[in-house]
């Protein structure tokens, strides 16, 4: 039986990559300290900042909101209802419950009201759902964070997400994406600062935290994510991790420390979208172009926000 390295009681969690055995109490403490240290390491935000946590109802984002609240940050939630039938209904319910139980502020954006639901968009879009869904979420996250006066958007991206994305970008040598892969994306014309405080935590570490904190979250996979290549990349990395603990963390952190500073990121110039006014590199942003495909009416030239 493994014992907690802090108190010698029975350990419930063993983290091979950190060679650490911990009981429930000390795991919760370790997790919160490591989140705080990550926020400081990358100078993500301070306790004066108003932080908007993008919550999906899943383990990562709710664990993030929970721990930020515990650490005393001014963190509110933003839920984007994607309109994916029962899956979205349950996600929304759990985010609502999480906020109400803790007396926290949750903002809700209804995608169906803004543009159309994901299943409706899928009928006119050839791209994988995860691709346009991610784009829409980034658009509305940024728009509402700015409109509601938040300084920072925090997302629940974890080490598995980041290392799988890194692997994918390295396999295709996508230098543009590699240069942009960093846990902090600075604020710039029309874009609110974006941060990933859980980038050094595995999915399992976040799920363990959520379980031990008594957070009810959606365990089921999004029906549109089935067969996503990111899952394949995560499984490959987990196979390596089983044989060589610490590989994912080393792969990601050494990229940030050694490789990222060598990559030059060309600053693309941004202009306000002719239709909605959101920042874009083209005359009309991708969301407005999508909206046009869904309802082919001439686009208005006045900004709606």
């Amino acid at each position: 039986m493994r014992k907690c390295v802090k108190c010698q009681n029975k350990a419930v969690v063993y983290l091979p990559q950190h060679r650490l055995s911990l009981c429930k109490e000390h795991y919760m403490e370790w997790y919160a300290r490591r989140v705080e240290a990550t926020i400081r390491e990358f100078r993500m935000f301070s306790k004066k900042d108003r932080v908007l946590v993008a919550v999906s109802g899943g383990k990562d984002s709710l664990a993030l909101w929970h721990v930020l609240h515990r650490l005393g940050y001014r963190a509110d939630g933003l839920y984007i209802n994607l309109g994916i039938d029962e899956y979205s209904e349950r996600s929304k319910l759990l985010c609502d419950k999480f906020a109400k139980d803790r007396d926290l502020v949750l903002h809700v954006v209804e995608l169906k009201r803004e543009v159309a639901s994901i299943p409706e968009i899928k009928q006119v879009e050839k791209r994988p759902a995860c691709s346009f869904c991610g784009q829409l979420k980034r658009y509305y996250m940024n728009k509402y964070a700015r409109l509601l006066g938040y300084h920072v958007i925090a997302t629940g991206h974890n080490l598995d997400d980041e290392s799988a994305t890194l692997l994918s970008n390295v396999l295709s040598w996508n230098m543009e994406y590699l240069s942009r892969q960093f846990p902090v994306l600075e604020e710039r014309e029309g874009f609110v600062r974006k941060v990933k405080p859980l980038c050094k935590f595995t999915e399992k570490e976040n799920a363990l935290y959520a379980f031990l904190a008594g957070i009810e979250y959606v365990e089921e996979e999004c029906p549109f994510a089935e067969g996503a290549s990111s899952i394949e990349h995560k499984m490959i990395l987990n196979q390596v991790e089983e044989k060589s603990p610490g590989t994912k963390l080393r792969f990601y952190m050494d990229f940030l420390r050694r490789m990222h500073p060598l990559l030059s990121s060309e600053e693309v110039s941004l202009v306000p979208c002719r239709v909605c006014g959101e920042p874009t590199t083209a005359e009309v942003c991708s969301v407005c172009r999508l909206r046009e495909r869904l309802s082919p009416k001439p686009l208005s030239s006045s900004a709606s926000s």
Partner: protein
Amino acid sequence: MKVRVLYRGQWLELEFEGEKVKALELLKAMGLSRESAFVVRGEELLTEEDFIKDGEEVRVVNAISGG
């Protein structure tokens, strides 16, 4: 021996030889990685070395997600 497993909203019944099985063996039998999955019995989080006995019900959480 038989173990009932709740996995992503579905009940499964798994059979093993002997009278008890380690949580890690259960994960392996389900084809899940110890890097992403863990076992819960009631409110208790099981370690990989903890045993599950004949007739017990457990929940398996797989943290891997795509998108």
